[in-house]
């Protein structure tokens, strides 16, 4: 019998999600208004609106960064939970758009939040799978002994696209979300996956030290092979969700919400129908309202559309992130009336 490949499966019983706060860019861009500047005809604009749900996105103003957005979310989260920064012993920042390529932006965020120097802080360089990965790492750290860990996920992707690229530019939104994981009984299950053979499906050429001949002269902006990403998603995500349900032992009927990364309405509808999950348990509007929030899209969807049920009810959720890498992962998590206010628009608290 052939050996089964090693699998990145994790489960936890003593790490609980206590709250989620999301800050989105303060500037709203309407697709119908920006379409002509991208060289799109009115017919093409309406076609894209209908096909993949492009309506609006929220992006940052001026020079605001990932750390700025995450700092705003973290401050609001800690205040809302009435938790002092001095009690947090870990900070993970998941981003593809750090403030500097080095040092890690998590350490700048640690300083700005006033987390003690006896805490650990580090970056994780992942995109749309990043919240699931960050949560898994945070749960691991909590079960290994830390009391409280912040998971910050964010990107200012609008600043890393060619503004004239009608494929990528109108998709991207900016957001920074922060979740708190703390030590108390709560069950969760995770499955994580990686496939570097698809690394060029979504990437920024000439953005590191490696030089590739075919990228010579190309600008350092996000490049997407839409067809490859589409195929990857439909090939991997339905199985990903069925596998995490099997691993957790939870039947599909027991899941209150399926909160997936939000690439576009069509892909999400396709997955929802394949899984035979009712629409009301499968949010899909985030892309249309806020844009693609990359690593922040899962907490961004909870903040944007599920604030009331997550604040008021005990829930079992499937979370699934998938994209650049290629990297994907899913979790089944239990939550019990977490702190989950609606998103904040911009850095100033209203």
């Amino acid at each position, binding site marked *: 019998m052939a050996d089964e490949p090693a699998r990145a499966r994790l489960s936890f019983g003593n790490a609980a999600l206590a709250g989620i706060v999301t800050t989105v860019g303060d500037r709203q861009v309407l697709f119908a208004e920006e379409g002509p500047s991208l060289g799109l005809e009115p017919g093409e604009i309406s076609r894209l609106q*209908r096909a993949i749900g492009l309506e609006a996105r929220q992006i940052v103003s001026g020079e605001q960064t990932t750390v700025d957005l995450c700092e705003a979310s973290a401050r609001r989260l800690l205040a809302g939970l009435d938790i002092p920064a001095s009690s947090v012993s870990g900070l993970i920042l998941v981003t593809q758009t750090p403030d500097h390529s080095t040092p890690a932006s998590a350490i700048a965020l640690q300083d700005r939040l006033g987390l003690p120097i006896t805490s650990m802080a580090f970056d994780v360089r992942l995109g749309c799978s990043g919240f699931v990965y960050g949560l898994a790492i945070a749960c691991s750290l909590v079960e290994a002994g830390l009391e409280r860990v912040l998971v910050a996920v964010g990107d200012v992707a609008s600043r890393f696209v060619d503004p004239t690229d009608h494929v990528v530019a109108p998709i991207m939104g900016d957001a920074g979300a922060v979740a708190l994981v703390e030590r108390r009984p709560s069950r969760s299950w995770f499955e994580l996956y990686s496939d570097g053979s698809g690394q060029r499906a979504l990437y920024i050429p000439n953005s590191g030290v490696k030089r590739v001949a075919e990228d010579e002269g190309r600008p350092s902006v996000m490049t997407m092979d839409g067809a490859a990403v589409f195929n990857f998603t439909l090939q991997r995500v339905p199985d990903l969700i069925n596998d995490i349900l099997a691993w957790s032992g939870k039947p599909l009927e027991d899941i209150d919400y399926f909160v997936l990364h939000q690439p576009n309405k069509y892909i999400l509808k396709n997955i929802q129908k394949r899984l035979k999950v009712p629409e009301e348990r499968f949010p899909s509007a985030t892309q249309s309202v806020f844009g693609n929030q990359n690593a922040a899209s899962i907490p961004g969807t909870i903040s944007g559309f599920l604030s009331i049920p997550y604040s008021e009810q005990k829930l079992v959720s499937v979370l699934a992130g998938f994209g650049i890498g290629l990297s994907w992962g899913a979790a089944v998590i239990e939550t019990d009336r977490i702190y989950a206010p609606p998103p904040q628009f911009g850095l100033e608290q209203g």
Partner: protein
Amino acid sequence: MADIEATLREALRRMNEETRCEALDAVTADSNLFDAVDSMAIVDLLLESEALLEAETGNYVALAGETIFDAEHSPLRRWRDWVAYVEQRHGR
């Protein structure tokens, strides 16, 4: 029972009202949709086809699969393959 090919032709006609690809005005059994239009038009075609078939059959069947955008194996590379693919998805 719904005539799937007729429904797919209507979906193609609706999609092409906005795409305006002349090569798709008169589709033959060997017409190549995959190379004729861009990926957004293909998503549009999938949406139109799914919606029309759902209206006629009462069942939503997702038509996008991992081969749809596969440059070598997409059923959209030949009209007759596309019709067969959709019929198979609808259990015909």
